[in-house]
Every structure is written in C-alpha cells, then in structure tokens.
C-alpha cells in the first residue's frame, strides 16, 4: 500500500468519517483515497476552498464530537496553523497529517523534515502543544494514525502525523490489525444539541479575563506534563552497548539504520535511537543513553532542527553533532556511514 493511502485507510479504520482536505503535492493521495472511500461508508469527504477552510471544518466537526481529519503538506500546514491554535485553545481532539516537502515558501515538492520546529515549537500562536507522531514505515503510518486518534481523544488536543514525501509516496506491505478498543472518556463537552436535557455547551478559546486565561493555560500545561511523563516513545536499534548514538526519525531514520548496520559490520559500536513521538520528545531515552554515549549524531532532512531537542536532552553530557540535507534531498547511507566513521575516528 502507498503511504498516503495507508494513512487514509488507517483513519477510516480508526472510526474517522469526516475528512476535509485541499490538494497539495505530495499528500494528494490521502484526499483522493478519502474521496473514493468515504461516500461508500456513509462518511464525509469534502474538498474545501482552502487549507484554512479545511482546518476550520475540522474544528466544526470536532466540536460536534466526531473524529475529524485533515491532511496537507508543508505550505498548507502553515495555513492551518490558525485553526490548529483555535482547536488547541478549545480543547478539541482532531488529527492533522503533514506529509512534509521542502521549504520555506513554496520550496519544493521532494521529501523534507524541515517542519520539525513548526510541529513541536509553534504549530500555532499562543502557549500550546500538539501531539506529534513520526512514522518511519508505511506500517507505522497505519499504527500511529490509529494511536493519534485515541491519544487526541484521551487528552482532548490535536495530534499531528509528521511524515514526509518519501513515506507518503512509497509502497510497502501493511497489515491493518483489529485493535482492542481503548477506554476513552465520553465527549460530554460536544456542541451537538442539548435537547433541553443539559446546560448549553460552549466550545471556545476566548477568555477576556487574564486570570481566567492563565488558569486555563496552566491547567493545559499540567496535562502536557502528564503526557511528557507517560507518552514518550522511541525505538532503540543496536543501542545497548553503543559508544556512538545516531538520532533520527522518519525517512532519515531508515537511512541511518542502514548506515548503523554497515558501521557495525566494520566493528564500530554504534546504535540508533529513533524518536516515534516528537512531542513529547523521548528525552528520557536519550538522557539514559547519554550516560554511556561518547558522541551523538543527529541526522535530519533539514538544516538541523530536532538536534536542538537532542542537545537539550543530552544537556552537555556528550557532544552532539549534526548531519543533514535539506531542500528535498534524502541523505544516503554512505554519507551517514562516513559521518559515523568520523565520530569513531575522532574518539580514538
């Protein structure tokens, strides 16, 4: 299955029946798949007049208490940031897919990871976070879309799938497994018509009294702290006895896996830590590894964005280097191997 189609099918399997989109390369297959499937299962596919409208349709559907999804690529996500902020400020759950391409501006259409800062630091104005999941295989795209819907509902906040053009366009076998239903809180806050049986529900993000707004944001940040302590996810690969650790996510982590394997074959004790959640960032796993690691290498398809979080986690315990390509270029395993060798050579 193609990555983009897997994202869409996973959302359907997760019970999402409302998709609002706008075409943009390289994620358009998500919309096309939804356009084909939704009418057959009684769902809604609606092509909005803009990404701005699409995210606000998601806001409306999420307010009604249903699982809603929108999907775009980097320039379109910028347009959605307004809506994402309102959704976060209204404590609404929803899922947003970003199949990243090169930027800034219109940038390019080839795969990129240059929206890391946007996703983890400023997905919209104001004090807020969204959950950020970073799949590295088509199978994981399926699994994480399902997790994202559950987690969004559980924590009443937006969740983002941060993929890239390579993952969106590539085809790999996938298995869509039946999953045990999570116990999720009932959406008693939904604006879906009170039928004169309860007080009216108001979904809003406006609080004109500074004290009220601060209290609400603080409450939200306590929730964020709980998420940080409970929901960090990462994968370790050959990292147990590693002297050197490569940190990479998504498509670039696959390249790094190949490079780590090749380096091991040459006797270099190197491993990989692959963040699966980018927010919350898997700080704990990296901190733990920092106790025994001589040198970290972060590899990204950007000028170096996640490397900030790696440095914060390592907190000076070891040097942290960066290697990457931007503009739509995927680093090659040989290049990463070369960087690993430099570290290993330097440490001798």
């Amino acid at each position, binding site marked *: 299955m193609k990555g983009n189609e897997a994202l869409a099918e996973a959302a359907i399997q997760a019970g999402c029946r409302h998709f609002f989109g706008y075409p943009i390369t390289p994620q358009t297959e998500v919309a096309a798949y939804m356009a084909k499937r939704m009418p057959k299962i009684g769902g809604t596919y609606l092509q909005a007049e803009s990404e701005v409208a699409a995210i606000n349709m998601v806001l409306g559907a999420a307010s009604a208490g249903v699982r809603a999804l929108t999907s775009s690529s980097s320039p379109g996500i910028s347009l959605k940031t307004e809506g994402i902020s309102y959704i976060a400020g209204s404590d609404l759950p929803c899922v947003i897919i970003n199949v990243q391409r090169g930027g800034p501006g219109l940038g390019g*259409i080839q795969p990129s990871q240059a929206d890391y800062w946007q996703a983890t630091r400023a997905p919209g104005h104001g004090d807020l976070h969204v959950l950020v999941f970073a799949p590295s295989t088509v199978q994981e795209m399926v699994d994480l879309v399902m997790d994202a819907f559950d987690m969004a509902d559980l924590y009443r906040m937006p969740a983002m799938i941060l993929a890239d053009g390579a993952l969106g366009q590539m085809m790999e076998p996938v298995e869509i497994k039946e999953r045990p239903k999570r116990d999720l809180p009932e959406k008693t806050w939904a604006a879906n018509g009170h039928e004169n049986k309860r007080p009216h529900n108001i979904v809003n993000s406006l609080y004109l009294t500074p004290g009220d707004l601060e209290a609400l944001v603080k409450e939200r940040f306590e929730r964020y702290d709980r998420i940080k302590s409970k929901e960090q996810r990462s994968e370790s690969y050959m990292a147990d006895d590693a002297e050197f650790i490569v940190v990479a996510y998504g498509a670039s982590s696959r390249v790094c896996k190949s490079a780590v394997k090749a380096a091991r074959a040459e006797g270099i004790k190197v491993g990989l830590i692959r963040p699966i959640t980018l927010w919350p960032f898997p700080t704990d796993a990296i901190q733990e590894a920092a106790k025994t690691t001589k040198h970290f290498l972060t590899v990204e398809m950007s000028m170096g964005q996640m490397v900030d979080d790696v440095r914060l986690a390592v907190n000076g315990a070891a040097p942290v280097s960066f290697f990457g390509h931007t503009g739509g270029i995927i680093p090659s395993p040989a290049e990463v191997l070369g960087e690993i060798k430099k570290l290993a050579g330097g440490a001798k």
Partner: protein
Amino acid sequence: MSKNFNMVLAGFGGQGILFAGKVIAYAGLMDGQEVSWLPSYGPEMRGGTANCSVCLSDEPIGSPQVLNPDVLIAMNLPSYEKFIKAVVPGGKVFIDSSLISGKVEREDVEAFYVPATTLAEENDLKGLANIILLGKVFKEVGFSSEEALHKAIEKCVPARKAHLKDANLKAIQMGMSL
C-alpha cells in the same frame, strides 16, 4: 528465493516505469520478502522523467531510496545517463535498445539490450515494452518465483483494465524467451 535486490527503473513518464516497479515489489511480497517501492514524483504527469526504487530483502528495509542499484532498467537516454555510473560493480543493466542506441562502456557491469518498444509494436503489445523488459529481467535476475510474478501481474492490473491481463502475461513470456 532469498536474494536481496536494489533496483532502479527509469524512463519517460507514461512508459509504465512505476507500474513495472510495482509488479516487481508485489512479486517479492508474494514470495514473503520484505519489499519497498519508492517513486520519484514531479510536477509533470506525462513525458517527464520517471523513476522508482524497488528493494527486495530478507530483512526489514532501511533506506528505500536506491542510490546504487544492482539492477538498472533504463527506458530512455537521459535516465540511462543519469544512473549508469551509479550501478554497483557486477550489477546488471537492462536497456530498451529501441530507444537507446549506445552501448554500455563500463566493463564491470553486465548489459542486456532488448528492443522492447519495437517488439511491443510488432507483436500487438503496444504500451507493454516495460513488461517485455521485465520478462527479460526476470529471466536474468530471478527476483521472484514465476508463480509470484504471475500473481503480481494479476494484482497490479487494475480491474477496469482486466482485458490487458493476458497481454501482460504474453509480454512477460516474450521477454523471458529473449
């Protein structure tokens, strides 16, 4: 079948490059291998260059982007020129000699010349040069079992083009006989 392959298929958009790649990936999948298929994608739908990376492996696939193929299938000159230097020593290169007139100068790779486009036109298999070439690749490389290859063709030919299934199988046979 337990061999690892990193293939690049390249040509003009519209030649069925991506389709041929998909067939290989599906054939690997039918044989229980790990597979990946990664297309290049561009703003043009037809006539531009198109290429895809296909990996077949016994182990989970790392980078899905093939930079140094062990099998190259080239269906036009720009693609041939772009990728020929990247082929690993000992690799196999398949060329549609109806469209590419030159010969491979490298001596450390094995080259196969198939006039696939001409053969397709002469045998009422217009548009299936890609599959004729694929048949030849199958014969020389054996990337999957024959049964898996047939299943893959059936899987990849869309239902609305079901009438082309037999033509595809015929094209495979033709390629294999060369």
